């Protein structure tokens, strides 16, 4: 009887869990400035859990710069055909400095859940864009990675220049103070959970309109008198922000950063409101998205939104040039903690943590 029981238990478990192989396909264009040296999908696999298929896409890629220019950033697109109609993810590596002929790693680590169905999961990895050190770009740019990579690169240059200035003005001791302050800001940054949904809001609290205050950046090419969003408890619905092009150049897109205030007086970076708006010089338009955002604290408790502040996060001109705010503009005392550091600043902080001040100074001396 014991043997038959064990056999039945083993059969039941085999129904619950079964594994199979999944090999994501890497497809780079023939004229791509990066070449695939190796692809290790050994961490990938598919398992059946109940009525759901769990597909782990874990691939370690080694790419080589096969072009003539130094690469500053790359975005790969991951298409999972089974998540209809979305099923799209991207993996971006900014703050690179890869000379022609050099190699660099890119790790893809995603999980796809889908109902159990016959046939293997189809996962394709492709190239969306590569940014070079002269800010030129290669790639289909379907995910708008050109602007994102350019913003990361400009932020990296801005932050490196700022830290070089700190080093020159105050020496290593001052640079160390700056790093410690940045680490403290990172540790103190309040975390929130955000859910974004389409369609009507589900919260039944009475709706109220909350005005956006707007941080004034003197050098920003756009200005705003402040916007509004419908707020229902912990939900913010369809933020609407009018922007005015005060530059002399045509604008292609604007991205507004969005800071929330809660009842405890804390500030949270809630997200960004990007919009592709064609703005001629002097023209005014609304930046708006039909979205419902629901905010909770890190512990999962719904937050009560008491106020909001917006700021211009970046602006893309029609000629492809990008504007970002300066360090001085971002050092607003009340909001500095809420604003996220740049990827390059994170990388430099990591060098300081792992290798020390001397290594950081050496890193800043590089071009």
């Amino acid at each position, binding site marked *: 009887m014991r043997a038959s*029981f064990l056999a039945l238990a083993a059969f039941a478990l085999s129904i*619950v869990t079964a594994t199979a192989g999944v090999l994501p396909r890497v497809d780079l264009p023939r004229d791509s400035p990066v070449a695939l040296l190796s692809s290790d999908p050994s961490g990938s696999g598919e*398992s059946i859990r*109940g009525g759901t298929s769990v597909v782990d896409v874990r691939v370690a890629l080694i790419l080589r710069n096969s072009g003539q220019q130094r690469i500053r950033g790359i975005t790969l697109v991951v298409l999972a055909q*089974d998540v209809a109609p979305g*099923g799209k993810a991207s993996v971006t590596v900014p703050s690179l400095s890869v000379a022609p002929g050099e190699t660099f790693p890119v790790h893809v680590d995603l999980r796809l859940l889908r109902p159990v169905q016959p046939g293997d999961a189809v996962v394709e990895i492709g190239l969306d864009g590569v940014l070079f050190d002269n800010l030129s770009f290669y790639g289909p740019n379907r995910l708008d990675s050109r602007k994102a990579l350019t913003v990361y690169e400009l932020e990296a240059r801005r932050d490196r220049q700022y830290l070089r200035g700190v080093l020159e003005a105050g020496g290593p001791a001052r640079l160390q103070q700056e790093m410690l302050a940045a680490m403290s800001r*990172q540790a103190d940054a309040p975390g929130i959970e955000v859910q974004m949904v389409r369609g009507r809001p589900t919260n039944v609290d009475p709706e109220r309109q909350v005005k956006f205050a707007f941080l004034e950046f003197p050098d920003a090419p756009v200005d705003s008198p402040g916007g509004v969003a419908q707020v229902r408890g912990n939900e913010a619905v369809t933020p609407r922000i009018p922007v005015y092009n005060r530059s002399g150049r045509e604008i292609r897109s604007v991205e507004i950063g969005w800071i929330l205030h809660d009842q405890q007086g804390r500030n949270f970076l809630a997200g960004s409101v990007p919009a592709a708006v064609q703005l001629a010089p002097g023209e005014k338009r609304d930046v708006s998205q039909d*979205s419902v955002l629901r905010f909770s604290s890190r512990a999962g408790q719904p937050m009560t939104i008491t106020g909001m502040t917006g700021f211009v996060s970046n602006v893309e001109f029609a000629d492809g040039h990008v504007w970002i705010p300066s360090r001085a503009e971002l050092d607003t005392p009340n909001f500095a903690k809420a604003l996220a550091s740049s990827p390059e600043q994170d990388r430099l902080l990591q060098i300081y943590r792992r290798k020390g001040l001397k290594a950081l100074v050496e890193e800043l001396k590089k071009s």
Partner: protein
Amino acid sequence: MNHPNNGKLALLAGGDLGFWQALSVRWHVHGCERCQSDLLAFRRTHRLVTGAAKDLPPGVDWNRLSEEMTGNIRVGLAAGECVGGFSERPRLFHLSRHLRWNGAMAAALLTAVFVVGFWLNLPAPQADHLLTSLGRIAGRGTHAAPSEPREMLLASQQGIEVKANGTSLSYVPPESGNVVVSVSTRGSAAVRATDDDTGQTTITEVYDAR
């Protein structure tokens, strides 16, 4: 020496013992003083009881009572035969009480193993969905539950996820290192994580249908 037991002596005293057994007992009693004494005692008792039975309470019709009792006994025997006919068939499953409990315990244990295994292996979104559905069933629709959106983006320090039509795509950042999460109202959620060992920063982003 084997003496007949008191039961046989009592039946002999009442004249109710079978012919061959009565012959054998009488033969023994004939040569045994002790059994003769016992038999005489039983006969005396029998006479006393018979005498007492003749004096029935007033209003009792013994003949009618006897017929009713006989009828009831016949009905009981007939019912017993009917039931007895059925008891033969399920003999294959006629397990002892001990075995029956063992079987029930094994079935319950197997069910528990299956349910626990199923639940542990069920991904969190599907588990949430199942819990919500069970909650709705338990609530029997007494209050209207909010309709679940067809598409949703989630972002927290634990990771990012896009859910649509029963499928999802997610990324969980490594536990070590600094993690920055952001949401774009254009329809994406992103996690920025810096690898502790290599120092390389990677931004993973998932997108909704738009």
